[in-house]
């Protein structure tokens, strides 16, 4: 029953995305050319990766608002490292980026786990700390295209089977997170801990530790995204990806992930990210006034959530007798 509802929600969102693409194509036919669709997916790849991490965190009834700052700080450090040591191979840099991001995520997770602080407060704080650290490490200076090595910039642009590596990385992350959530004990624990923390404790799960692991995953993916972002736009400076955390959370909500924890699928999160990717890429080509774009994208998001949520509305189960029945 639950599986069927979730499946129909995802199906609904997929249909909305397809309908939107077709609608855009009536004004700008090249939009649905295969090459352009791949380009849009690649453009959304960074968002998809962050959304996969956020999915894990939100499932445990937490939220990670520091992902964009984590991305920016890691990206700046990796950019500076590449400038200083251009000979370090790209896979090593990507690994270092993930590890550094993981450290930042673990810091969030540790505060939530060991001090029992609310995740929204912790990550709101680290959002500012990590962003502020970029000033400290860079002194406000930029890392520019000509300072980065050709391999650093080229790696994600190479095409394998006609698809850029940037998108393959996104695909790999989706596959890994899907595997973790479906096939591993910790993945199942995310659902349990978020769905019913009390029951999780009675089932022998350590709620705080589970949330800590979710933050580590989110942090590592944000770190990886830091390398991808800097390599894609060939520039690193203090302001990169500022405000991007809202896109990430919005994509999760569009994808039907419950902010209350415990409910959400990889498919839904993926579709939510693709939905935002399509909107972002469509607005410039269909010639809408820039004054309207921001408001319009918000409107489309709400519309999608409304349609999506209505299709999944369920009655709710009455497991205890109502007050009137219970009264003697």
């Amino acid at each position, binding site marked *: 029953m639950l599986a069927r509802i979730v499946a129909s929600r995802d199906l609904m969102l997929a249909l909305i995305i397809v309908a939107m693409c077709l609608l855009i194509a009536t004004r700008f036919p*090249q939009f649905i050319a295969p090459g*352009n669709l791949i380009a849009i997916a690649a453009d959304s790849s960074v968002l998809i990766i962050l959304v996969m991490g956020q999915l894990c965190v939100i499932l445990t009834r937490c939220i990670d608002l520091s992902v964009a700052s984590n991305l920016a700080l890691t990206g700046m450090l990796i950019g500076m490292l590449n400038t200083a040591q251009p000979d370090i191979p790209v896979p090593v840099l990507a690994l270092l980026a993930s590890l550094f991001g993981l450290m930042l995520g673990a810091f969030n997770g540790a505060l939530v786990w060991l001090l029992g602080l609310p995740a929204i407060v912790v990550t709101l704080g680290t959002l500012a700390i990590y962003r502020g650290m970029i000033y400290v490490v860079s002194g406000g200076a930029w890392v520019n*295209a000509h300072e980065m090595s050709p391999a650093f910039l080229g790696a994600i642009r190479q095409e394998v089977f006609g698809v850029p590596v940037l998108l393959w990385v996104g695909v790999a992350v989706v596959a890994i997170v899907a595997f973790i959530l479906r096939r591993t004990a910790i993945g199942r624990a995310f659902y349990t801990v978020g769905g019913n923390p009390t029951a999780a404790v009675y089932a022998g799960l350590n709620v705080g530790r589970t949330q800590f692991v979710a933050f580590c995953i989110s942090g590592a993916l944000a770190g990886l995204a830091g390398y991808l972002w800097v390599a894609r736009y060939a*520039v690193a400076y203090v*302001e990169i990806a500022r405000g991007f955390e809202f896109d990430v959370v919005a994509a999760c909500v569009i994808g039907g992930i419950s902010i209350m924890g415990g409910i959400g699928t990889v498919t839904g999160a993926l579709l939510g990210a693709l939905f935002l990717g399509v909107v972002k890429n469509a607005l*410039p*080509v269909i010639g809408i006034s820039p004054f309207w774009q921001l408001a319009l994208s918000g409107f489309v998001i709400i519309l999608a959530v409304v349609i999506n949520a209505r299709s999944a509305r369920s009655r709710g189960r009455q497991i205890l007798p109502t007050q009137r029945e219970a009264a003697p």
Partner: protein
Amino acid sequence: MNIKHIIAGLSVGLALAAPVAAEDVRVGLVAKALGIGFFDAAHSGALEAAEEVGDMEIIYTGPTSTTAEGQIEVINSLIAQNVDVIAVSANDTDALVPTLRRAMQRGIEVISWDSAVAQEGRSVHLDPSSPELIGGLLARLAHDALPDGQGKVAIMSATPTSTNQNVWIEEMRNALPQYPGVEIATVLYGDDLADKSYRETVSLLQSDPEVRVIVAPTSVGIVAAAQAVTDEGKIGEVIITGLGLPSEMAGHIHSGAAKNFAVWNPIDLGYSTAMIAYNLAKENAEAAPGSEISMGRVGTLSLDDTLSGAMAEPFIYDETNVDEFAEIF
């Protein structure tokens, strides 16, 4: 800290003062902060002016971080040295006014350059450029980048409400009648975000393949547009130009995505500041509305009612000089 500053300032002053004649014009050139390439370049320009006129001495100084408090300390030490002119690029429009007024009461000529001091705290202010000059130059860069000066141009701006960009674009439109072949197809808004600017550029390249030139008067936008043109394989087909910084644009000049771009030249700015200081101190010119002050090789400064003037149109950087300036700023 305070004492160190003053001693450092004094010792520099004394060291420079010793070998030169007493009637030299002594100019205190105050940077927003020391150790910034832009201001070091301005210093070298001021030294060039000093060498040219012969009887001018430049005392280059500034705080260690870009604060008004630091500048007040530095200015106090210049007052104590009884320099002839203080030329300051202000960290705060109003905070320096009381200190600078004290300097003026002691007979020191005070001017601001690059970043202005409120009018009651200075005589002349030297702006690096003006909206008219910038707009005119943007129109010319667009024209020069178009094949035969004919074709469609797009503008990459920051946000729809950025005052600077809007004024410059307006002035660019005003200058277009001189270049009849140039047609502005659209204005893109990248919001000074690298990713949005990039995406807007990619979309433009698809939706309007006739656009041959993108003019970006924003340092984030010009870099993102150049990267997008590179990634889309349109180098040579679509040319990027606009306002940017040499250190940020060097790679894109070498790749060919941009042939040139403009921004004020800090060397000329330092040179002009020193020349204005010299001419005011020597009473070759007076600080009054409508008056003209010579800036040597750079030209002549015309003062408006607020005693400000614009140095020149922005300096153009291309393959030949970008690397040299990329070291500076």
